[in-house]
Structure formats: C-alpha cells, structure tokens
C-alpha cells in the first residue's frame, strides 16, 4: 500500500488540477530514488539522531498507570524531539528531498504551528526561504509558535479565507505551489494531500513505530496490546501504527478531535462521523454537508481542527484493522491536567486527546496488559489557550 497510483483501496489518489500533475510525478520519481539511496537514508538517520535527538524515549508512566488501575501505559516521547513534536521527523525528510531536487524555497501549511516551526527549522538549517500559511484564527491561538517561526526567519501568512483554519491554510499553500512550482517545494505536514505525500510522510514518520517496537521488546519483553494516537491528518498515528500493521494481536486506536461531542455536530472527527469524498488531492473521509461543501470543524486543538484525514486511515477504518474514536475538548483538557500533575509531563492539546482515550481504555484492561500512547508533542505552545480557558491572564 498504496498502489502505483497512490490508492489505498478506494481512497487516496491524485485529485489536483493539471498544472500540478507533472510536478507531483517529478516528486514521486525523486522520492522513489532517494527511498533506495543509501547516502540519502544515511543522511536522514544521521539528522534524526544528532539533530532531532532520536531515538525518543519510551517511558513507562507507572504512577499514572497505577492511579488508573488498569493496563500499563507507556508514552512514546515525541514531545522530546527537537522543536517539540513528531512533525520534525517529516520535515527533515522532505527538507533533504527538497535540497536533493534543487529547490530553493519551502512552503508549508500549519494548524498548531508545530509543522510550521519544524519546516522553518529545516529551512533555516538549509539556508532556504520559507513561507508558512496559517489560518488567521490559528495565528491567534498559537501565538508562541508564530513568534518562533518568525525568529527562525520564516514568513507567516495569515489566511483569512473560508473557516480561517488548517484546511484554508492548505488551500493557500497549494495556490502558492501551483504559482511557484519551479523553485518551490511544498512540505505537507501530514499524511494527506495527493500521492505521493500520504505514503512519503508515512515513511518518514514510521521511525516512531519501529523504535517503539524495539523499545517495548527491550523493556517489557513483548508486544503491546494496544496503540493509541491522536488523529488530525494522521501522521503521528500512522507513524506509530505502521510497523505494527502486521502484528494482529496489537489493537490500533486513532483518536479524533471530538470538540463539543460528536453528537453535537461541533467536532473534527471525519472518521467517526463523516463520509467519503474528495478534498485536498485525495479521496478520504470528510466532514461535509448534503451538497458536498466542506463544513467547519471545531476542536480545542488547532492541530486536530481539520475536516479530512489521511487516506490510509480511511482504508484502515474500512478494512477494520484500526478503530477510530473521538475525545471531546473536555476529556482532552482533563487528561492534559492529569498527566501534567501525575507524571510531570505537559502534553500538547492534540496529544491530550490520545491520553484521554488511552486512560479510558486502560481502565477496561488488566494490569499485565500494555498500551503505548503516542505523546506526539509538548504542551508549551498551548499554555495561552489553557490559561484563557481557566480565566487566567499570563
């Protein structure tokens, strides 16, 4: 998976205007080359080890596990990566590919700002120009990351069209790419978009699951019973799941942004409550109205506030290999505080959705069972949001 043309079952594919078809084919060919190129892969591994700080720890959250009274919870500490989230794994990979293809300008879309920061970081390191598109609403709620991007030398463009969030930032980045396609590399931040992005981003993120498997074998001597990860576009989840897809005893749970509750309609959970359609270059589950217009999403977490999802997740849902659930804003906030106070780790609001469902799941399991939760990022960027909710001025 996927097939030659980027299909995961009926999902995925390459639904873009003609202008981008050949550039995507060039990208596919370049990526196929570096995938089997020892020098490129050695450079990627080197950067992950010495620049990102991999492997990231797999940490047994003993105190929290005991408190919950169920399964043993292990946290995959992507929050300890350079720049504070899993996003950097992918931007290192695509950044190297951009350089290999001779591109001098990088563009990216961002929701929470983590992917924007990670893109601005590789651009700074490679001496490339960087433009980051970000929904105007997200510029407000993720202010610390906006400032980080600017410090790194990137231009942050607030997007005021549509719903002013991640999907609109993606539209605007695509418009930039189609205009500047000769010198520009578009680093998509998740496993969505047209082929080859979903497969390429997955491959760059799959390091998460490969490490986690080795680490749990070392620490516990066996495979986990379940993996849990939050799903915005789905890159940290696919990254964790990928190496375990063949291990049928390992259950896979993706946790979407439940907003006010899936039953209220105010959420960001296309796999839980959406329907298949076509957006942003691929066929996947979408949140749409009866006329096929994409509808606004609601999540406390900017990184999950997206009406689509990577096509491989759509396929994993339909074939039953993975289960998709939602955690509400409230549940995520509760988990945020619980893990902060119990384990001394401040998680990102995105990751807090995985923690919330992981805790629920753990309680239904026995103490000799094991769950790995992907702690996809750290929560420093969210402290303004948390403070505002609690009525505190910083």
């Amino acid at each position, binding site marked *: 998976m996927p097939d030659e043309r980027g299909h995961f079952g009926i999902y995925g594919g390459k639904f873009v*205007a*003609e202008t981008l078809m050949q550039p995507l084919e060039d990208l596919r060919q370049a990526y196929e080359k570096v995938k089997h190129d020892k020098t490129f892969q050695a450079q990627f591994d080197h950067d992950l080890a010495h620049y990102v700080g991999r492997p990231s720890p797999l940490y047994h959250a003993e105190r929290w596990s005991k408190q919950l009274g169920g399964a043993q919870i292990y946290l995959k500490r992507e929050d300890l990566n350079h720049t504070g989230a899993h996003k950097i794994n992918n931007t290192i990979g695509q950044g190297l590919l951009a350089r290999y293809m001779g591109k001098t300008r990088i563009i990216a879309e961002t929701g929470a700002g983590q992917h924007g920061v990670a893109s601005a970081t590789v651009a700074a390191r490679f001496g490339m120009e960087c433009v980051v598109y970000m929904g105007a609403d997200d510029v407000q709620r993720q202010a610390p990351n906006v400032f980080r991007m600017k410090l790194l030398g990137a231009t942050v463009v607030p997007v005021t069209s549509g719903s002013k969030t991640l999907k609109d930032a993606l539209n605007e980045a695509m418009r930039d790419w189609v205009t500047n396609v000769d010198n520009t590399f578009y680093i998509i931040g998740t496993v969505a978009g047209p082929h080859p992005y979903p497969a390429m981003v997955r491959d760059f993120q799959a390091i998460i699951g490969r490490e986690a498997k080795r680490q749990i074998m070392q620490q516990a001597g066996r495979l986990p019973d379940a993996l849990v990860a939050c799903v915005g576009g789905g890159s940290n989840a696919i990254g964790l799941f990928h190496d375990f897809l063949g291990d049928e005893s390992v259950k896979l749970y993706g946790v979407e942004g439940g907003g006010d509750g899936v039953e209220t309609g105010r959420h960001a959970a296309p796999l839980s409550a959406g329907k298949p359609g076509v957006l942003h270059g691929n066929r996947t589950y979408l949140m749409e109205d009866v006329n096929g217009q994409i509808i606004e999403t609601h999540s406390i977490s900017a990184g999950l506030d997206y009406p689509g999802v990577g096509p491989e997740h759509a396929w994993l849902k339909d074939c039953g290999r993975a289960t998709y659930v939602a955690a509400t804003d409230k549940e995520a906030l509760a988990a945020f505080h619980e893990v902060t106070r119990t384990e001394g780790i401040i998680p990102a609001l995105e990751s807090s959705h995985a923690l919330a469902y992981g805790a629920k799941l753990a309680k239904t399991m026995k103490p000799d069972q094991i769950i790995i939760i992907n702690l996809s990022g750290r929560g420093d960027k969210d402290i303004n949001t948390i403070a505002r909710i609690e009525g505190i001025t910083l």
Partner: protein
Amino acid sequence: MSRLATRFSDLKKHHRKALIPFITAGDPHPDVTVGLMHDMVKAGADILELGVPFSDPMAEGPVIQLACERALKHNVSLRDVLGMVKTFRKTDAATPIVLMGYLNPVEVMGYRVFAKAAAEAGVDGVIVVDLPPEEGADLVVELKAHQLDMIFLLAPTSTPERMAMIGAMASGFVYYVSLKGVTGAASLDVQSVVDKVNQIRQNTKIPVGVGFGIRDADSARKISAVADAVIVGSAVVQRVADNAGDARKISASVCELLSSMRTAMDKV
C-alpha cells in the same frame, strides 16, 4: 452533433473565435444569474461557463474565491445551478453551457445521477478542476452516456505525453491554462501560449480554448489569434463584485467588457 461541436463549426465557417465568459452561479445572488447569462449572450458570448460554488476552490485566486463565498452565503448547491441552466434553456436552446467546478459536490450527488440531471437541465460540457484524466474514467463514462462533453485542462507543465493522453480522452474542447498559477493571476506570456497551443494542436484535433490571465480586449485579441476560444473569468467576476448591489449595473459592466473583447477579437 452536440451544441458545443455545432457552435465551434459555425464559428469556424465565419472565421470567428469563441468568447467564453465565466461567472460563478449564484454570485452575488441566485436571482441575478440567469438574466446575466442571457445578457452575456447578447453582448457577444458564444459559450457560457458557469462556476459551481465550492467551499474550497483550490485553483482560484481571491476574486473567484470571494465569488464562491458570496454564492455559498445563499447556499447555492449543484442542484440549484442545474436549476438555473434549466431556466436559461427555456429561452435559449442554442448557446452551449459548460459547468466548471470541483469534484466533491459531484461525488456527493453521484456520477450517474449528476450526468442524467445535467443532461436534462441542458448542460453541454463539464470541467472538473481537481479531476485529472488518471482519476476521471468513471465520470467520463457516465457523461458520455448522456452525450455530455468532459473538458480536460492542459497546463504549461503538461508534457507532450500528457497532451497526447488528454487529447485522446477529451471532448468538446481542451482548456489550456495559460500560466502557472491560480485564476486571476496577472502574468500572461503570449508567446509561450502560442508555442504551447501549437504543440497541443499536434496532439489533438478538438478545439483549444485558452483561459487564466485574459483580462481585457487586448489580451483577448492576442489570444484569439492562436486559440479557438478565449475564456475570461476573474475580469468578469470582478465586475460582478464591483456592482454587487445592483443587477442592472452588473450586466452593464460585464457586457461592456465582453463587447470590447468581441470587437477586438473580430478584428483579428
């Protein structure tokens, strides 16, 4: 013969090129659209391109994005657009109509249901911006079953191999996107368009329309010297936006632009 084929062969007989204005259906209000369509025909339009509003128009520049937003304020749906075509057809059976939009509304309606409803309404051709030939075979089959033309795009980045493949699949006309960019972009390089159109003609016999970046009589005249059809989008839609409060002013302003283009093109 289809309305599109008839129109192109009539124009050829008279050594004229087709003028194709684009408006977004339902912009700024659903009541305005059908009247504006008739007025554009009177001002010299040979074929009408009707945009189906979409929430995420990825290939559009700001002018047409805003047109989509104005139409969507009135919840204009694909079904509503077909309704407008049906009304237009009551008094104009000859002018070909091409719908231009994005795939998702068509997916939701279902390809077969859409093809049947579009044919019944009096649509002649369909452009789906985000549906390249690689993914388009299923829709083409359904459209063909109702004698509807699937109009594919070609771009400055299209290789000769893609031109040949698309030329073989397309019907009605092929739409050459004259620049790398979104609709409404300013930088039209006439010589590169001439070169590309000549290259396209080596790969297909069907008419070649050129759009993106044509904004005035001068650019329309230059492009009509080489293409079979001149497609004008953002320049028309901008006039709709500038006069949004008054349907008569919209028509007057749009028709003034089209008349000037028509005159310039007919001098070639």
